[in-house]
């Protein structure tokens, strides 16, 4: 029997989702500012 922690397979998927959300916010804000104003 392995003592490896359970439920680990999805952790990289969640990592990817969270980092994408984060990068999306960054890119989205940059885009909005660059296209803001005169």
């Amino acid at each position, binding site marked *: 029997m392995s003592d490896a922690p359970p439920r680990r397979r999805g952790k990289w998927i969640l990592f990817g989702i969270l980092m994408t959300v*984060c990068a999306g*916010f960054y890119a989205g804000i940059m885009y909005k500012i660059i296209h803001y*104003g005169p």
Partner: protein
Amino acid sequence: MSTTAHQLAPARSGFRLGEWIFTTDHKRIGALYLIGSIAAFLVAGLEAVAIRFSQSGVAPGLVNWTVGDWGGNMANASAYNVALYFHGAAMILGFLIPGLTGFAANYLIPIMIGARDVAFPRINALSVWLFWLGIIVALTTFVIPDKPDVMWTGYPPYAIKTAGNTAAYVFTVHLIGFSSILGAVNFIVTILYMRAPGMRMGQMNMFVWSIFTALLIQLIFVPVLAAAVTLLLFDKYLGTNFFNPDNGGDVLLYVNLFWFYSHPAVYVIFLPAMGLVYDIVACMSKSKIFQYEAAVYGGMCGLCVISGEVWVHHLFIAGMPNWLRAGMMVTTLLISVPVGWMIISLWGTMWKAAITYNVAMLYCVACLALVLVGGLTGIPLAIVSVTVHLAQTSFVHAHFHFIMGLFATFALFGSIYFWFPKITGRSADTIVAKIAFGLNLLGTQVTFWPLFIIGVEGMPRRYATSEVYPQFLSYHQISLLGALISAVGVTLMVGGWVWSAFYGARTPGNVWGSKSLEWTHTETPPGPGNFLEPVVISEDWSPYNYN
């Protein structure tokens, strides 16, 4: 075949620097965060004392010396601006956030949830490296000739026009910001995926919940600050005009973006501090958390949800439609509801309990008073008709120091005393620690209450001297006295930690009689892999199962 972490770990003895620099062990990474954040606190604290010396007129030249202007080449007011920049940036970005979400989260979260490490240990190591790099960049302030002087806010147009090194400010924010984003992703995944078999989220420690909610805030809002300061960098060094009003840029756009992150950042600090206080209070009261679900879902999760809709109160005097002022006044006042839930829950946890007043608990009891003063003084600042008079005065300065500078700092100090026996195997709970606590509490009250009074009377924030307002000079001198009392207290406290780490009385494994996993299921101090046997949680287990 079943193997334990201890069987897998090779026996080692002695101190090896490389093992610490390249470690992926969450406990050692936590210790590295602790050392870095306390170092930032001490230097930023020195700047705070210099600021008090400057405003009180007692020794205005001291501030030049503390920012590295040993030849006295800078004007006193310029050196004061540098000191104010470093104090704010280092206290928030270098001490409070890394101390709470770096040190405390790293050391405690995996053990509290029954995990052997975080979900991504190497990314965790990268986080602490970036943090240390950020600290080093911040410390260059003291050696470079064009010292940054843009407060911790970096407001344009000053940040664009100043001869100071705005890039150092921006790169510090980038490094520590990226570090905290990686940390946030790591711990959110760790809490969701690495809990011991059988542990429901509803069974987690309050501190785990507080970190989970705080890091959700961090993950959403840090990119906004990163974008804002990046464009600030472009404005100053590449000639763009996003925020430069001389060429059609919008200053208020930056201010909005800055506070869109920085007000939620208050809760990134507040929530973990509250989580630490909860865990200490429950253990030292030997009580279950009063209304656990209400405190978690209504308090912590509620604060997490509302945190993003209140930032405009920082701009109430900047000019905006009244409907927006009214709306943001309501959302700001709503913050008192989840905070109130948590405070009532803490009082309820202590109600009729047999409380043991160790040093950690003394800090937590002080926290209950500090959060009350900080919270209640926030209400007039949320009300538009009042805040037009109080904005930009010392009243604001004293208010946020109570809620962040004192409440969160006292919670962190209390947590260091509480988990010190677990980390080192020795106690730091000495008579000197109690004296240091008394001095810290007394000193901070003597420092900040005069600032409330003169703030109401009209003393502006961020003035290098009191020459323009000589009627407030005696209050500034009382405030200086308080800062000096605190400095003695902090020296005794930090000295006590170092002494206790080597010579403190040895303690039994579960010295406080806690029911939480880090005390009941690990060695003292915990070895590599944390647990001798894999942890399995039963349906009726609770970290607060005291009755």
